[in-house]
């Protein structure tokens, strides 16, 4: 009986694959599983970009969210288990590279072939009526009494920025974990914490509406925000920040690295066209994102670099569960 079932399945599979072979990828809707929650930066970028790519590929792209686990490990696991045929994409960001060393899953990041849409630079801000006028004020004050800072979740990019700032300036900060950037910013507005480190894209509305006040960019260049003015770079006062920064946030999506070359080429083509469309460019400018557009080998190299920096930074701090060397991740 079992044999009959197997035979039947095999025939079906053969018929299906032969009929597929006649038409080029993609022939049916693609699913993009975003591993961060709906409404966040990664989600918004993926939804916008997928709508543009769908036009190029001429199939529907469904965007769903599958959050949870450690640094998005549940969503990544679910997509990686599916067939490597290019019909399943995963929406992610550089914050996902720490999943393995935090015990979320057992893979090095090179199981993916990523596509990098862009990033937004990080900024240190305080509540609008905070007594600290400059970054120096904040750092001096912290030496008398540890100041509380919010910067998204443990091991995320903003957390690493906060740690780097602490190291470069000798400040004494107490990191308070929040589930994401938005709750961290809210905590700064309610003055539960003394300052917050998140990206410009996430903070812009609050800065312009006088809820938060920017102290400095954690980026080599100053940033001009309409209605607020120029925000200086912290790199001028603390040059040692440039040792490991800036880290790009690298928001985008990825596909299983084992997909056939033809599928990858098709995706890269559609990705490039979408990235050059005026819709994506306008959206990025309005929302304070800097576009990247890396794909293929270049994007893989960039993610490998980020993986190495992120995981070893966590290792320096003892904030990880497993050593990066266990996964063969080289030191930066």
């Amino acid at each position: 009986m079992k044999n009959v079932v197997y035979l039947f399945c095999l025939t079906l599979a053969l018929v299906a694959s032969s009929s597929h072979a006649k038409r080029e990828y993609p022939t049916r809707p693609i699913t993009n599983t975003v591993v961060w929650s709906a409404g966040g930066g990664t989600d918004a970028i993926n939804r916008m970009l997928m709508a543009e790519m769908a036009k190029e590929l001429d199939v529907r792209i469904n965007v769903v969210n599958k959050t949870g686990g450690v640094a998005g490990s549940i969503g990544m696991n679910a997509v990686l288990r599916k067939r490597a045929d290019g019909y399943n994409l995963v929406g992610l960001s550089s914050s996902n590279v720490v999943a393995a060393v935090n015990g979320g899953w057992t893979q090095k990041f090179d199981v993916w072939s990523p596509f990098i849409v862009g990033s937004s630079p990080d900024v240190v801000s305080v509540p609008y009526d905070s007594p600290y006028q400059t970054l120096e004020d904040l750092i001096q004050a912290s030496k008398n009494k540890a100041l509380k800072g919010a910067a998204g979740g443990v091991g995320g990019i903003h957390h690493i920025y906060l740690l780097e700032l602490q190291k470069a300036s000798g400040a004494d900060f107490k990191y308070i974990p929040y589930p994401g950037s938005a709750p961290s910013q809210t905590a700064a507005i309610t003055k539960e914490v003394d300052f917050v480190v998140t990206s410009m894209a996430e903070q812009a509305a609050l800065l312009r509406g006088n809820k938060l006040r920017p102290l400095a960019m954690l980026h080599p260049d100053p940033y001009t925000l309409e209605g607020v003015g120029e925000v200086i770079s912290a790199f001028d006062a603390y040059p040692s920040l440039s040792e490991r920064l800036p880290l790009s946030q690298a928001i985008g999506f990825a596909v299983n690295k084992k997909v056939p070359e033809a599928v990858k080429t098709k995706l890269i083509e559609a990705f490039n066209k979408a990235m050059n469309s005026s819709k994506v460019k306008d959206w990025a400018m309005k929302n304070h994102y800097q576009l990247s557009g890396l794909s293929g080998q270049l994007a893989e190299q960039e993610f490998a670099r980020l993986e190495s920096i992120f995981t070893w930074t966590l290792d320096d701090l003892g904030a990880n569960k497993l050593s990066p060397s266990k996964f063969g991740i080289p030191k930066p």
Partner: protein
Amino acid sequence: MIEQFTHFFSILINLISSPTNIIILFVASFLGIIFGAMPGLTATLGVALLTALTYSLGADTALLGLLGMYVGAIYGGSYPAILINIPGTPAAAATAMDGYPLTQKGLAGKALGLTTTASFIGTIIGLLFLVTLSPLIASLALQFTSWEFFLLALLGIILSGSLTSPDLVVKGWIAGLIGLLLATIGRDALQFFPRYTFDVPELDSGLEIVPVLIGAFGIPQVIRALTNTHHVKPPIFTGSILPELKSITRNIKHIFRSATIGVGVGAVPGVGEDIAGWVSYSTAKKTSSKAQQAEFGKGSETAIVSSETANNACVGGALIPLLTLGIPGSPPAAMLLGALLLHGITPGPSIEIDHPNFLLEVTAIMVLASFAMWANGLLLAKQVIKVLQLPTALFIPVVGVLCILGAYALNLNMFSLYLMIPIGIVAFLLGEMKFPISPMVIGLVLGGMADESLRRALLLSEGSFMPIFERPVALLLVLVMTVFILAQFSWFKRLFSFEGKK
């Protein structure tokens, strides 16, 4: 002010002058009701799915669809709660308490009509607050820090525990504590430490609410129907669905108070419709006469009006921090934030600079959305009560299949089913022992927030509990809770009535 009003009406007329807008509004609202009514499909999921579909539309039209969906879905949860005692969303759990007894009395139509109108009035009152008081309410919402979130979550669990228990109140609290215990399963939110996960990767992100909700309410209902050999069909409802004006005016003070509670709870970031229903239900009970109080839990009009008004008023409340601070007040509002960002609108304090009159526009859209919900609701109600006339042998298997589909559909994950069935059996056994089920589900829904907030608060205060007594809102919440717990003891009641006589 007058200028604002004329502007408001010109926006309103602009919106309804396009037939496509009207079609989208009604279709979205209808789909919303279906989403709310189907166990397993939630308001959050509905808004998320619609976001992708409305990408190519203009921002106004997209928002019309999304808000229509949101309002409809919150209302739709009351259908299965009233008709089959399975709340479609956690928000409707309080409605089931009195809605189902009304159905058993053959008053399903009346109950649906009342909740439809109450939801409509609730949404409109929520809007009035949104337009007139949003800066004030937003600043109040900012009084909520980790301590207050923890206390509010605890209050929600205690309230639902003491209200739902048909037997001893302590049984409700025990059910609430079981819920809290279930909420600790998974990686903890602060340090990713695995708790009770037994190395099962599916447990890493904790128990999903939807399969638990369906399991806890749906499965016992199916088992009960199977074990019941002479099933009594609820009598056929013959009256009018449209509620009499009298029953609305009779409850008008409850409607107003519940709407205020709904707006207040909705405005607090991260806390949504689930708590609003319970807080409003308990307040309604406390402020009713002795005779009315006895009705609660047995099919009280006041009870369903209160919980439904509050959970719909919550929608307006949840939009306040979203539009003024960029902080979503509830999970569906978080989806809405994503949709707005897609259309190039960044809600937050800078919205009046970038998009002047956006608040008025949202209000106009919400008014239309509530009208669509009301009209759709009254039309649908007449049809949906007919399902009660189906023979049990046909009806219960369909409910069973829908429960399983609902739990599976959310994540397309078999694990949800392995979770749902045992929870359902445990819930059935607990129900047989007269433990209420709602506090368990509410405990799971709010437990994560309570746990995370308490630990973060202690981290911030370096282990001290003193901030509770230094923060006015926190102190108030503690007092309310203490009185509520003490009020269950007879010696306290005696003391109270003795002093009352003096």
